[in-house]
């Protein structure tokens, strides 16, 4: 069952539309706006404080574009 413990968030760039919800609402401020554009001209978020992620899953749930997922944390 979800949320899986201790996972790592990942952005699916081609799906992102740049709303910024992940950047704004992550309780740990894991994301920031980057300067990278995807093919739709969207300025993508990037994961800058991945280590602080508590795997709460909020970003996954709030991303309206199915553009955030979690990977099993390779560290564990």
């Amino acid at each position, binding site marked *: 069952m979800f949320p899986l413990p201790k996972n790592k968030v990942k952005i*699916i760039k081609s*799906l992102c539309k740049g709303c910024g919800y992940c950047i704004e*609402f992550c309780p740990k401020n894991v994301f920031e706006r980057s300067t990278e554009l995807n093919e739709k001209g969207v300025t993508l978020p990037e994961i800058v404080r991945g280590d602080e992620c508590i795997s709460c899953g909020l970003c996954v*749930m709030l991303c309206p574009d199915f553009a955030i*997922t979690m990977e099993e944390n390779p560290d564990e």
Partner: protein
Amino acid sequence: MTEQIDYYLEDYLRMDRLPHIWCAGCGLGIILKSYVQALYELEYDLDKIVTVSGIGCAGRASGYVNTDAFHTTHGRALPFATGISTSNTDIKPVVISGDGDLFAIGGNHLIHAARRNINMLVICSNNFNYGMTGAQYGPTTPRDMRTPTSPYGNIENPFNLVSLVSSAGATMVSRWTVFHVNQLKNSIKKGLTKNGFSFIEVLSPCTTGYGRLNKMSPIDMMRDLRDTCKIRKVHPTEATIEPGKEVIIGDFVDIEKPTYADVLDQLTRRSTE
């Protein structure tokens, strides 16, 4: 799409149809996500769900779910779902549609389906306007709002959806927002397992339509949902939504009544006695 998409809900979604058509930040993606997440967490048999929609941005939701799905005509999702629900009682119809679809053109079907207690779950995306046709005002738009068809401000009084649906006889009535995404998901789970007519109003930002007209960014709109909505238990008639006032969200009705399918079955027994 060259990027290899590997998504944990890929069995629940029509991945070949992503990205969806909704605008950046549109709450509909979150509603859809909450719905499929609920299915996923319940391990619900996807063959026993039919996702039904009317027409509108919200109505497009049925096209992304990996269940049987029917994108019908504007305002009529509920009678379609009634036909489904009464024909095959193994199936749970889940209607996802917009406030305009369900309460402007479709209002009558909604109150009648609630009255009959048809076994179905209705998820109403309330974005306070007709998104698909370009953000005109509708029966949920607050007073004084400027929209393309109310350029001097909306003069109509909005419905209190929660109160209307309760009056009509629904057995479960809740209101959440896309910001309250976990409660929303749980509410959907409850609706999915409830035997009866369940209704969930979801306040949801229309970012390009309503948002742009209000000069609000998607993030502003989400913050607004976070800051103005309060979970409380009140009588449905008190759950009005008024600009500048606190918006009450939560569960309003949760009762048990025989469903239409139940009484149809009783009828068959009675008629053959």
